């Protein structure tokens, strides 16, 4: 079990590219540095997209889980 607490949840189920990253950016912008966002998506493209998004923005992807058609991401706001 990961040692972080989730501060905010974002449901992107049913949404396709590019909405999961667009909504993630918006949600992260409204959070404080150090807080963790949990984002849930069903778009298989969200897995590579969120990894790229994390690399580009510098916000840390703590965990990315494939739960069989549902993808769960934990992102820590770093700046």
């Amino acid at each position, binding site marked *: 079990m990961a040692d972080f607490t989730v501060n905010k949840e974002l449901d992107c189920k049913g949404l396709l590219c*590019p*909405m999961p990253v667009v909504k993630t950016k918006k949600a992260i912008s409204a959070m404080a540095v150090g807080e963790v966002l949990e984002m849930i998506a069903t778009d298989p493209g969200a897995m590579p997209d969120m990894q790229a998004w994390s690399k580009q923005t510098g916000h840390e992807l703590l965990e990315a889980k494939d739960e069989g058609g549902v993808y769960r991401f934990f992102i820590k706001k770093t700046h």
Partner: protein
Amino acid sequence: MAGSTESGKPKRLAMVASKGTLDWAYPPFILASAAAAMDWEVGIFFTFYGLPLLKKELDAKVSPLGNPAMPMKMPFGSEGFQNINWPMPNILMANIPGFESAATGLMKKMFKNKGVATVEELREACLDMDVRLIGCQMTMDVFGFTKEDFIDEAEVAGAAAFLAYAAEAEVNLFI
């Protein structure tokens, strides 16, 4: 971080959007919103048939006529039925009144069913994230558009101004 250059400046995406049908309205707004979501600076230069994408009311349509790779699929029925690609010869399409608006309706429905955002929503997301939407002055003059036809956020510029912007971009795309 990777979203900025070594000098610390954000990365930049410069795009030319030259097509205004419903299908081709998607790529510039999708790429622009994704790039902006990664904290890149983004500017889209709308020229020729891309200009109507700046209009206050979007009315982009799609035609399978002369667009042979476009699948014609039904947005309802069983999955097997939805996956059938209905072959439509140009000679037939060209003679059916209302065929284009039917095709536009089908595409919108199909996109909605699959969970794709509308072009309006994507454009709004771009504006939210400060994507610069720039109309090409010369083609506006040719096709009779004025700045008042476009959304308030739209800027107007010429080729030299766009190229100066694009010269500073890490990614340049022509769509």
